Structures are given as structure tokens and as C-alpha cells.
């Protein structure tokens, strides 16, 4: 593979250097870290207070307006689920493709996945009218003898998100075990105890590696269709409905591409400060960024194609309702949202064709933030604008405006996500120790000739 050439880091990057550099990130946190964590917790507090209000008074506090019955909460749900996708993509799919460059970034991406799913999973609970009956969606044996409706895409969603959360968590933990063991062997005090327990007796014997590498392969093989299915199922929440603007066969691939796109952007957004803060420049190089940027470019182009496709199909189908919906989308009262989405998601990433921009970390960071914003608006446009412009019933349409409750919950979700993420990077290796080592040349008595595809399962 072409990447292999640039994967080889400077010779001073040895196994020991890797272990110690990464272990150093777990050292005593700086003031800046606490400031960030404090900010995250404060945001979370805002979210919790808003949630308490919602529980007490009802969802009316949010901006909903007939017929816009789904809005910011579901937008955030899809946004976070989307974010969650790059992690598994990078760790599972690129693993299967033997992309060496993934090793430096996959842990961050995977942690992001888990916490993003955790965040996303809260939204369906918050957004339902009677939050205290959320468990009725679960098929548990009950006195009434009632079961949920498996034909409902929401139940599919529940299964998909539940499975995804479980599998991605397990995947993260599996990857962590050898690294925790490595950290364990350097740590002292309570941390040593913590790592001793969480490393569940990892010593790196050949037997352990034998089962581990096999198992990891199968997990990756299972996670790959899963990651594709999850956002497909999320997209079916919309595509299965008959709302013009939702009801489209393109939705599953369109959403999956969008999810990976937003996920990669989020990885760039998160990696950049971590790399700076933890001094990981040697391990996470411009090369990694460039590869992420290429992924963004690919998925962004798919998303852009999907946008074109949607409008084309609306026109080509000749269906008056579809046409009305897309006309409303582009030129209705929400034109600004639609155009924000198109510019941020379809046009801005075209800059990544330029190698100079692709390899400029600051530029990438800025672009990634715009992509995040654009992807949030994509969901907003799909959900809110399609509902607001209700083209079946000309009488029933409305202009929806979010309220403090919508923003409060959204802020809380960012707080919740960043709190977990910050706690994670300070307590567990944010870059995979063992896998980074795998792409290094192994220590030998005589310098060995460089081998392509050193990494094998």
C-alpha cells in the first residue's frame, strides 16, 4: 500500500517511546484540562435543568408547532448517531482493509463513537411525551401481555442503537485491554489498581494474542455491517415514513455517507487539540490528517451527490408533493438552513482537493467545524423543513422556531459528550499503544529489510 511508505516514523520512535509518550498523557491534568471539564459539566448542568423543566411541565416548552412534531431533539439524535459512525468505520472497516494509518487515530475515534452513541441514545428518551414510560418500547414480559410493534422503525432503531452501543463499547474495551496492561505496568498507586482490574490479567502471551487477534478480526467483521446498518436504520426512521423529503430509497447510503463524513470531521475536530495538548505530534502526523481529509472528501462528495439526487428525483418524478417539498426546502422560509447545509457540506470540502489545504492542520480544523455545523443543519433541514413545509395538506404548515428548551437540551448533550470524552482521554490511552507499535519496524539485532504489510491479524 502506498501509505506504507510514509507510515514509517522517524527511527527514534521506538516501542518504548510510544509506550511512554502515550502513558504520559495520563499524567496529572493541567489547569486547562479542568477548565474544559468544568465547562463540559456546566453545559451538562444546563441540560439537566432543562430536562427537569421538560419533565415537570411537558414538551411544550420546546418550540414544537403543528405539524413540526420532531425538531431539534431528533436533529441532535441523528447528529450524534452520525458522529458515532466514523469510530467504528476507522477501527473496523479500515482494520479489515489493513490501513496502517488508522492505528494512531482509531482509539480517539472509537471513544468518540461510544460517547456519541451514549449521547444520541438519550435523545429519544428526552423527546418522547411521556418519558417515564420509555421502557414500553422494550420487549419485556409484562402483566398486560403487550409487546412492542416490530414494524415500527423506532423499534428497529432501538435495536440498532442498542446493538451498536453494546458492540462499539465492547470493541473499544477489547482494543484497550493490551494498552491498559501496558499502562498498568508503568503506573503506580490507585491507578495501578484500576488498570490491574480493567486489564483483566492481560500479559501478552501467545495464547492471549492468538484468541485476541482472531476475536478482534471477527468483531471487526461484525461491526462493519453493523455500522452500515445503524445509520441505515436511522435513515429508515425517515425513509419509511411517507413524508416528502423523507420518503426516498437513497436515504440509507446517503445517511451512512453523511454519518461517516460528520464522524471524520468530528475526529479531526477532537484530535487537533488532543494532539497539541498531549504532545502527540510524532504519533499523529499530517499524514494521518491527510488521510482523514481524504475520507471527508470522499464521503462529502457522496453527500453532495445525494443532495443533487434528491432534487433531481423530486423534479424528475413529477410528483407534485415531492416538488413542492423541495421547492419549499430551497426557497421557503428555511432557505438559509438549506443553503448553510449545502455550502458547508457540499462546497466547502471541495477545498480538500487542494493538497496544501489538505495538509494544513489549521485549515482542516476550521473546515471540520464547518462540516459539523453543516451536518447538524442537514438533519435540521431533513427533519424540520420537511415537516414544516407539509406538502400533502396545504392547510397544515407552520414555521417552527426552537426555544431555550431546545437549545438547553442540545447544550447539555455537548456537555455530556465532552465530559465523558475528557474523562476518557485523561484516564485511558487515547492512542492505541500496541497498534502504533505494530506499524513500527520491530526491534531486531540486524536492521531488517522494511516489510510491507507488517501488521497481520
Amino acid at each position, binding site marked *: 500500500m502506498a501509505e506504507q511508505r510514509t507510515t514509517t516514523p522517524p527511527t527514534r520512535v521506538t516501542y518504548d517511546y510510544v509506550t511512554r509518550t502515550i502513558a504520559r498523557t495520563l499524567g496529572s491534568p493541567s489547569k486547562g484540562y479542568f477548565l474544559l471539564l468544568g465547562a463540559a459539566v456546566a453545559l451538562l448542568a444546563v441540560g439537566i435543568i432543562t430536562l427537569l423543566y421538560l419533565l415537570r411541565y411537558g414538551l411544550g416548552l420546546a418550540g414544537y408547532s403543528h405539524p413540526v412534531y420532531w425538531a431539534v431533539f431528533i436533529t441532535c439524535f441523528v447528529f450524534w448517531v452520525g458522529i458515532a459512525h466514523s469510530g467504528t468505520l476507522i477501527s473496523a472497516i479500515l482494520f479489515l482493509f489493513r490501513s496502517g494509518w488508522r492505528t494512531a487515530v482509531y482509539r480517539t475515534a472509537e471513544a468518540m463513537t461510544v460517547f456519541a452513541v451514549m449521547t444520541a441514545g438519550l435523545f429519544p428518551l428526552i423527546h418522547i411525551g411521556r418519558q417515564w414510560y420509555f421502557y414500553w418500547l422494550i420487549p419485556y414480559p*409484562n*402483566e*398486560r*401481555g403487550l409487546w412492542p410493534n416490530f414494524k415500527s422503525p423506532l423499534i428497529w432503531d432501538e435495536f440498532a442503537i442498542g446493538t451498536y452501543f453494546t458492540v462499539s463499547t465492547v470493541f473499544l474495551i477489547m482494543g484497550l485491554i493490551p494498552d491498559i496492561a501496558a499502562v498498568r505496568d508503568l503506573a503506580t498507586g490507585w491507578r495501578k489498581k484500576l488498570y490491574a482490574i480493567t486489564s483483566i490479567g492481560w500479559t501478552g502471551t501467545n495464547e492471549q494474542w492468538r484468541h485476541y487477534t482472531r476475536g478482534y478480526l471477527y468483531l471487526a467483521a461484525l461491526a462493519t455491517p453493523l455500522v452500515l446498518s445503524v445509520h441505515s436504520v436511522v435513515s429508515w426512521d425517515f425513509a419509511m415514513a411517507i413524508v416528502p423529503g423523507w420518503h426516498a430509497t437513497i436515504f440509507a447510503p446517503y445517511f451512512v455517507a453523511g454519518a461517516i463524513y460528520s464522524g471524520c470531521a468530528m475526529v479531526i475536530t477532537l484530535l487537533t487539540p488532543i494532539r497539541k495538548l498531549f504532545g502527540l505530534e510524532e504519533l499523529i502526523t499530517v499524514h494521518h490528517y491527510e488521510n482523514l481529509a481524504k475520507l471527508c472528501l470522499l464521503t462529502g462528495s457522496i453527500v453532495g451527490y445525494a443532495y443533487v439526487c434528491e432534487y433531481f428525483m423530486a423534479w424528475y418524478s413529477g410528483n407534485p408533493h415531492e416538488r413542492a417539498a423541495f421547492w419549499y426546502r430551497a426557497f421557503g422560509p428555511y432557505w438559509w438552513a438549506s443553503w448553510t447545509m449545502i455550502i458547508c457540506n457540499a462546497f466547502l470540502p471541495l477545498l480538500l482537493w487542494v493538497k496544501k489545504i489538505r495538509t494544513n492542520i489549521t485549515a482542516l480544523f476550521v473546515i471540520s467545524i464547518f462540516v459539523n455545523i453543516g451536518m447538524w443543519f442537514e438533519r435540521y433541514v431533513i427533519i424540520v423543513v420537511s415537516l414544516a413545509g407539509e406538502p400533502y395538506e396545504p392547510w397544515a404548515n407552520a414555521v417552527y422556531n426552537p426555544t431555550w428548551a431546545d437549545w438547553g437540551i442540545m447544550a447539555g448533550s455537548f456537555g455530556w459528550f465532552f465530559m465523558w470524552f475528557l474523562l476518557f482521554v485523561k484516564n485511558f490511552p487515547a492512542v492505541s499503544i500496541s497498534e502504533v507499535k505494530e506499524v513500527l519496524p520491530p526491534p531486531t539485532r540486524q536492521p531488517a529489510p522494511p516489510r510491507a504489510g507488517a501488521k497481520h491479524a
Partner: protein
Amino acid sequence: MLALPPAVVYGQQAPTASQRYQAPIVKDSGNLKGPRQPIFFRHDIHAGEFQIPCMYCHYSAAVSSEPGIPSLQTCMGCHLYVAGGTRGGVKADTAAVRAEKAQVQQLRNGSRDRKPPEWTRIHALPGFVRFPHMRHIKALGPGACINCHGDVQGMAQVYQVSTLRMGWCVRCHVERKVTRDCTVCHY
């Protein structure tokens, strides 16, 4: 005004005297199951010993969703004349006679003072459930009360026998192969 409500025709045949159940003397109602009522009204005496059909008092059960609780006027229809303490098993026990008479007196006072007793409710369904009594009586006959309310004829103090929960309703509907469509009960 004292005419019998039409539902009385559903009443059971009165058994002969020898078969008659004799309600026990209850000295301390505090030990009995079920909530204490403002007047120690004994279903076992009225419906058990005297075999008054359920639907003499709860006459609307056969024609309406609601069984209703009898008005004081219905009570006084008999208790204008019946002072209590005159039934078979009690006559000999002066203390019991006095106690039962005192309960009847309480009823009479309530009627005189226009102060109806505030009964403690035992069987209650949530507001979102419709239970049409009349359809169940129609389908299962006038004696079907015991299916849900238990052997009230033998209860000195009434208590809830069935859970009255949805699963309990549904089980019976399934057993009897009648509909369990949701909007039969919930609307």
C-alpha cells in the same frame, strides 16, 4: 318511590330456609380484610343470609356501565321497618344484637340528617378504562358478579379479590374467546 327497580327480575331464586347460610357474628371488624367502612354494612347478611339479589341495590349494573351504589333511600326502604339484630344467628346474643342495631341506627341517623355515609371505595379502575357492567351481566348472567368481585355473599367486610389489572381482564377475554381489541375498553 319505593317501587322496586326493574333489574330485580334478574334476582336468583330464594333458597329454602334449611339451605340458608347464616352470617357469623362479628365482634371485631378490625381483623377483617378490606377497608373499614363508615357503617359496618354486611354483604354477608344482606346478600348471603337474606339472599337479597345483588341487583336489588346495584340495579344499574344490568343496564348501565356503572353498577352504582344504592341511595340511602334504597337502604331506608327496608330499614324503615327493619331495625337490625333480628336475624337467626344473632337473636340470642344481646351484645351482637345491640351492635347490629347500632349500625342500623347510624344509617337512620344519616338519612334523617341528610348526611350520607362516605363509603371507602374498593373497586376502582383507572380513568382510561371503560368497563361496561351491563355487557358482562348480559353475557354471563346476573350471577356473574362473583367472577370479579368474589364471594361477596360470604364477606362480612368487602375487599378486593381480583387485581382488576389489564392482564387479568385480558386473560378472561382470551379464555372466553371474546375480543381483546384495545378500543373496546380504552377510549
